[in-house]
């Protein structure tokens, strides 16, 4: 089997991580009370909603600019938790979407929340809105809502880009409590500057496990930790091995995936075992030997038909 692109190592590592995660999920399903460290931003959620309830002003939720994927999904799951609390207190909510597919899920999800709380009648489908799928139109629209409705609490969780600063600072100007978290590390510093509580990096992914200690989520969280530990170990081991190897000399050099003898010289990083492992090379000559019969209809001149 030829793994032309990744080499066997890539496949192996990926599968290892997958096993860690799934393995722990199924392990945790057996149900043990598992530890998760404190995440400040998430304890603030109820406080923020409480504040909004006192002031009788709406709670704003923005799942970011991203299309429908795990990130916006995760954001919506956290918002479901927020919406549940808000529903109990009868606090009005505003959920502003920048993607129609996300909007669809949000409608479904939030309606479910209200229904499951037996408050279906309280649910106003206009509280979940599609604003615009164009970044700055979205930014303009949301800050318009923040300013006009004077939202008392704001949750910005998901994939945020430049607009993060517009939201955070506008919400701050109306004195809203803000909980923010973005998988976009470039935006995190701005949230840190303007928001009260910030989820950094994959604290965001840990959130739902932290909020509702479901075995599946907690298990997966443990699996993620194992994976991180594995990476840390690899880095330690690799760095040490590279250091030791590079103190020595080599009489081989890898050219096109083949080790060729050379005059003895000090090791370079490119000669180390780990580099060979991580950067598999294919031998173009060997590859060129693989020949296939041509399709008679093929016209070398033009681009091929069926430009998928």
């Amino acid at each position: 089997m030829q793994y032309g692109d990744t080499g066997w190592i890539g496949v192996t590592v990926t599968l290892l991580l997958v096993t860690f995660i799934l393995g722990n999920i199924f392990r945790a399903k057996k149900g043990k009370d598992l530890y998760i460290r404190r995440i400040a931003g998430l304890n603030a959620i109820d406080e923020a909603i409480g504040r909004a309830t006192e002031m009788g002003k709406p709670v704003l939720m923005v799942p970011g600019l991203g299309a429908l994927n795990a990130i916006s999904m995760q954001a919506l799951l956290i918002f479901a938790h927020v919406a549940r609390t808000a529903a109990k207190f009868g606090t009005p909510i505003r959920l502003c979407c920048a993607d129609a597919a996300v909007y669809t899920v949000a409608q479904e999800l939030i309606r479910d929340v209200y229904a499951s709380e037996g408050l279906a009648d309280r649910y106003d489908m206009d509280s979940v809105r599609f604003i615009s799928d164009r970044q700055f139109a979205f930014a303009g629209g949301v800050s318009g809502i923040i300013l006009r409705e004077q939202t008392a609490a704001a949750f910005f969780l998901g994939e945020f880009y430049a607009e993060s600063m517009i939201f955070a600072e506008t919400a701050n100007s109306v004195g809203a409590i803000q909980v923010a978290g973005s998988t976009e590390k470039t935006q995190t510093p701005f949230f840190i500057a303007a928001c009260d509580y910030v989820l950094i990096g994959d604290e965001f992914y840990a959130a739902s496990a932290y909020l509702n200690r479901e075995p599946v989520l907690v298990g997966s969280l443990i699996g993620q930790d194992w994976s991180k530990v594995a990476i840390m170990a690899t880095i330690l081991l690799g760095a040490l091995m590279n250091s030791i190897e590079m103190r020595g000399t080599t009489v081989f050099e890898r050219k096109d995936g083949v080790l060729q003898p050379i005059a003895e010289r000090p090791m370079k990083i490119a000669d180390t075992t780990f580099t060979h492992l991580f950067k598999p090379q294919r031998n173009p000559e060997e590859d060129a030997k693989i020949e296939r019969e041509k399709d008679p209809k093929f016209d070398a001149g033009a681009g091929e038909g069926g430009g998928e």
Partner: protein
Amino acid sequence: METPVTPPAMGFAEKLMSVKRHTLYLLLIVATSVPTFFSITLPNKPDQPSIDFFTTVMALPEGSTILIETDWTKSTRGDSMGQMQALLRILMRHNIKFAIYSTADPAAPQVARDTIGRVSEERRAKGERPYVRWEDWVDLGYFPNSEATNNAIATNIRKAFAGKTEVPGVGQPATDVFRSPVLSHIQKVGDMPLLLVVTASKTFDIIVERLYGKVPLAAMVTGVMGPESTVYYASGQMVGLCVGLKGALDIERMMESGVNNPPDKPVVVNKKNPEVVPGFPGDDNEGNGKAYYPTLHLALTLMILAVIIGNIGMVLTRKGAKS
């Protein structure tokens, strides 16, 4: 700016701590407006990523074809247009053909074409050979799905851009781009010496994920994408990187002075590679980089002052509280 509009009750320290946002906004508008009317030259020392970018582009063999993914629109004109302009000037002076495509925004090809047109026009004005579409460059257009497009380019570039046509000249029928002088010799993406991304969004992530190892990659990114893309530059997944206005300015300066040039007393030193790269001294190498740099100074100064003042205020009030 130590004189904000605040109720007289406040002490000096409190005043420093509570400058109204509107005051700051006003000051910023002034700071960014006034200098635009003047042309000032400020010292600047190119960064290594920019140097690598410049030398990589300068080293491209004459007449070769490179692929450019251009993913910026008017909204990031300030950063990207200066970069693209500098890039195009170099490419055109070295007769390097290029094919552009976009995956971020439907409006991206338009701004790219405008920029190419402008640079080509300035060549015509100088009596140099203008860059001709179809002969020297082709526009492959906009592709809505960045992942799919770059995956396709990685697996089979001819299929990725199949069916794209251009009009070779007045009165001629639209023709398959792969029959153009630009792309006729390209069978796979590896046949190109470089794939360049001029982007204001995360599209270079996708490029690296899908195309790393298939073709050398270099990027011109907006200041905000800088830190993220630096990760790829550091890990060697990108051969060159030009970040933000500073990057554009770096390139402009190197176009003027060259790298390790003159050898005896170089203006710009490339620590990685002693090879001498002459620039285009005397040619018009200046662009947005030079035009905006002084204003940037003023704006940054304002910001730094604001922060310092705030902190002084805080320290003073603390002292007051203690005594």
